[in-house]
C-alpha cells in the first residue's frame, strides 16, 4: 500500500511539472493532446523508477498545501530581501577586496532532513555564506562566512530569519 502511494504521488508530481513545462503548446493556451500523452507516459515511468527513493526518509508532510504557500511567501519576501542585501554586500567586497573569511559552527535546532536541506540551500544561495557540512547526528552546521564578525555566532547572526522559516515551511 505504501509502495503504491509512493508511486502515485511521485507520478502525479512529475505530471504536474510536465503540465507546467508544456503549457501553451496547444490551442487557446491549453495543452496539445500528444504532449499530454507523452507527459503521462514519462510521469508513470519516473514515478515507478524513483517513487521509493523520493519518500525513503519520510517527508509526507511536505504535501500539505499551506507549506507550499508559505514557501512562496518566503521566496518572494524574506529570502529575496536577504539575497539582494547580501549580493550588494559581496559586490562591494569584490570591488574593495575587504574579506575576513572563516568557517563557523552553529546549531539551528532543525530535526528533519528536509528542514536541514532547506536551510543549507538557503544559506548557500545567499552570497557570502556557504554551507560546508552538516553533522547528521547533532544537526550542527559548518558555514564558510566571508565576513566573520564572531567566531562562535548564533544561527541568527549568520543567516537571519532563515532557520525560523525553515522550521515553519519544512518541519
Amino acid at each position, binding site marked *: 500500500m505504501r509502495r503504491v502511494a509512493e508511486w502515485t504521488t511521485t507520478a502525479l508530481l512529475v505530471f504536474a511539472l510536465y503540465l507546467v513545462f508544456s503549457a501553451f503548446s496547444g490551442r487557446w493556451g491549453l495543452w496539445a493532446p500528444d504532449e499530454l500523452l507523452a507527459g503521462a507516459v514519462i510521469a508513470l515511468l519516473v514515478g515507478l523508477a524513483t517513487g521509493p527513493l523520493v519518500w525513503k526518509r519520510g517527508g509526507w508532510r511536505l504535501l500539505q498545501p499551506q507549506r507550499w504557500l508559505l514557501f512562496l511567501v518566503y521566496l518572494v519576501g524574506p529570502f529575496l530581501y536577504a539575497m539582494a542585501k547580501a549580493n550588494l554586500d559581496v559586490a562591494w567586497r569584490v570591488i574593495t577586496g575587504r574579506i575576513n*573569511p572563516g568557517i563557523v559552527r552553529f546549531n539551528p535546532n532543525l530535526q528533519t532532513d528536509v528542514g536541514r536541506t532547506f536551510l543549507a540551500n538557503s544559506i548557500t*544561495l545567499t*552570497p557570502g555564506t556557504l554551507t560546508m557540512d552538516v553533522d547528521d547526528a547533532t544537526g550542527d552546521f559548518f558555514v564558510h562566512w566571508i565576513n566573520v564578525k564572531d567566531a562562535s555566532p548564533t544561527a541568527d547572526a549568520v543567516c537571519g530569519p532563515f532557520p525560523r522559516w525553515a522550521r515553519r515551511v519544512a518541519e
Partner: protein
Amino acid sequence: MNGLIYAFLAIGAAFNALGAVALIRFPDVYTRIHGATKCTTFGSLFSILAVAVYGIVQGGGAGGTMAVRAFLALVFLLLTNPTGSHALARAAHRSGIKPFRAVVDRLEEAGHGPRATDHGPRETR
C-alpha cells in the same frame, strides 16, 4: 516594456561581470564560490527575467512557452546551484585545501578536517 527588458539585462550583465571579477580577485576556492554564487543568483535571475518578460510581450503560444520555460530554468538553477557549490566546497576541504587566511576553522577542529597537505594558495598579497 522594452525599457524593462534592457534594465533587467543590464543588471544581470553587471552582476555576472562582478562575479567574473570575483574569480580573479578572491584568493581561494571558497571565497571564489561566493563570487560564483552571485553570478547564478542575481546575474542569471535578472537575465532569465528579461527572457520571461520578452516572452510575455511577444504573447501567443510561442511567447508563453518561452516565458514558462525560462521560469522553469530559473527554478532548476536555484535548486542545483547550492547543491553543486556545497559539494565542491566539501570536497575541497576534505582533500586538504585550507581556507585562505581564515580567522577560524571549526570544521577542522571538529575532526572532519583536511589531512596535512599543501594545496592551498600561498600568502601572495
